[in-house]
């Protein structure tokens, strides 16, 4: 027994020589281990145009409060790691936008805790690094996150095309009357009777604005009517591209009506690129030349009310149209007729009375009804706590 006790004491002494050597006789705390990030992956970011690699990881449990995740990158065959970024825990992902297509990279993530001492007692302990598989970026063929938008676009286009086909078959379509558009001929007729000109303002935006394209479509019809009646037309412009396009539209319209002799270059004229100088010039023309009919159709900003009120003061019949909700109240207050939102885009088709174009308006109405149905279903679903419907319709 004495021998066994002696051997045990010897074994203890061998196993813990430091403890025995410590002057105070107590054990120091072992350095806490900084954990490693979990499930680290580096892959090409999906649905992009290349030059980006997506890094994802999970935060380990028991992370120190002051921990940061360090991200480093190496480009094989070289093994030199370069610092890429430091992110806070909880982010879980990082996109390396400095990557270049065709290059292969490896990534490393590790946790650094400024307040934790390492085994040598120096603050700023670093956890074990986790290295990714080699990854390379490339451009992709489809943005998967926009699948819902793609389906919606396909559905909408399909409805429009089917409606156009139905219209082509000769089936009568009911299109509700739009008072503002029915008044177009009346306005031009009034100008003809009074022997005064028709003033057409196509907004102040350029032709890359769909409202300007819609406005040019209406200008085409008004120019044709002017050519038929022999009425003078004045179309002042603020944007140089709109000016060039509008001139071609009016020229073609007079040509199509067989009255190229009535077309004059100065009918469509350029004024200035400055918004308020343009407003002053148009308002001045309204007051001095007193056109019998003013058309203010397109994309307008602060000048909308100035022009509409000036035109109203001259006693001209005024037809306005815009899809901008901020300017609509001014037009409604100051003009005789206003094309509100979608009516502006339907105007070209409505005025043409072409079945094919009217079919597209019908399709647009069907799509709107479908959207309304989706909205109602979404409201009901959200009311009952079902959120998947809203999630499915969420676009990115």
């Amino acid at each position, binding site marked *: 027994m004495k021998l066994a006790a002696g051997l045990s004491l010897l074994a203890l002494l061998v196993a813990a020589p430091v403890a025995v050597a410590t002057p105070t006789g107590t054990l120091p705390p072992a350095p806490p281990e900084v954990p490693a990030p979990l499930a680290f992956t580096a892959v090409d970011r999906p649905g992009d145009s290349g030059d980006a690699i997506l890094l994802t990881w999970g935060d380990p449990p028991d992370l120190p409060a002051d921990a940061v995740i360090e991200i480093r990158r190496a480009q094989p065959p070289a093994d030199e790691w370069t610092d890429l970024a430091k992110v806070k825990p909880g982010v879980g992902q990082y996109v390396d936008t400095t990557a270049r297509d065709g290059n292969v990279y490896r990534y490393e993530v590790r946790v650094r805790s400024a307040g934790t001492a390492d085994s040598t007692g120096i603050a700023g302990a670093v956890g074990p690094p986790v290295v990714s598989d080699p990854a390379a970026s490339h451009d992709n063929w489809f943005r998967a996150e926009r699948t819902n938008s793609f389906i919606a676009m396909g559905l909408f286009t399909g409805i429009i095309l089917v409606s156009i086909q139905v219209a082509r078959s000769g089936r009568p379509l009911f299109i509700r009357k739009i008072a503002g558009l029915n008044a177009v001929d009346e306005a031009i007729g009034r100008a003809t009777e009074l022997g005064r000109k028709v003033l057409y303002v196509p907004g102040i935006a350029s032709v890359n604005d769909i409202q300007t394209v819609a406005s040019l479509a209406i200008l085409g019809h008004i120019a044709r009517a002017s050519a038929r009646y022999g009425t003078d037309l004045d179309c002042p412009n603020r944007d140089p591209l709109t000016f060039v396009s509008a001139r071609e539209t009016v020229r073609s319209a007079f040509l199509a009506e067989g009255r190229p002799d009535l077309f004059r270059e100065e009918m469509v004229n350029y004024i200035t690129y400055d918004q308020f100088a343009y407003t002053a010039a148009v308002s001045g023309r309204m007051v001095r030349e007193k056109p019998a009919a003013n058309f203010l159709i397109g994309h307008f900003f602060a000048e909308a009310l100035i022009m509409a009120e000036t035109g109203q003061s001259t006693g001209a019949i005024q037809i306005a149209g815009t899809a901008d909700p901020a300017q609509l109240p001014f037009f409604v207050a100051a003009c005789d007729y206003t094309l509100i939102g979608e009516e502006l885009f339907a105007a*070209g088709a409505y005025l043409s009375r072409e079945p094919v174009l009217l079919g597209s308006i019908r399709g647009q109405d069907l799509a709107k009804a479908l959207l309304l149905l989706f909205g109602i279903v979404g409201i009901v679903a959200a009311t009952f706590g079902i959120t998947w419907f809203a999630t499915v319709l969420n676009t990115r």
Partner: protein
Amino acid sequence: MSGLDLSFGKVALFLCFGLLPIAGFLLGLRAPSIRRQGPIILAFLAGIIPILSIYIPKRFLAHPEMGMSPRLDQYLIIVAGFALPLGIVNVIQNSSRKAIRRETGWPFAVVLLVGLFVMGSFGIYGAWTGEGIGFRVDGTSTPFKWMEENCFKPLQSTIFALLAFFMASAAFRAFRARNAEATILLVAGVLVMMGRVPLLEFIATPFPPLMPAAAAASQWLGKLTEWIMDVPNSAAQSGIIIGAALGAAAMAIRVILGIERSYLGLGKGD
């Protein structure tokens, strides 16, 4: 040749919007029908490329710097740069003719021409001397900047300031209670105006005992205003925006497919 970047997107854009219009123009000299088809084909290409780039992120199509779609936007700026001189020439032609023929408002045409040439000369002078059109190094204004600050901007502000008076006259006309809808508009408008300013407190200022009641009523009006703006007003605006978005999409489809041609001045059978 090493500096020449012939990426697929660049070459495709050059073919679509450089060679195709020229080819269309040359062919159109003999056949007018081809001349009419040219713009429709170009509209199709210009419309379909940005749509494809939304869903297909391939580098040649959608890359922010090298893609065909962002490049098309740059093309627009270049084309606008060419269109601007046409506009200036048009201004000079129209104003000169008006001044020479003493047409209605000819003095304004003279003022316009003088302004155009004076400002243009100062701009060219700034470019010629290298001092630009802003401030000089010593902080003084260049002639262009002086004219802009002392003539152009005050005139601009004057026109903008007219908005306040026109808003009052438009509101007066819109708020006349002619029928049920106009009456609703009038009541809603008055409530919103009262809710946005401390009108009741102002009225109650000479009567201190009424101040607490006025403050409470004002607070209630503020909440009512918020409700009017956030619920009925927002719902109506959303309806207009959704309708306009669908209308714009339908219009875009018509233009891209060449069904809508009235923006080219063409109609049925043309």
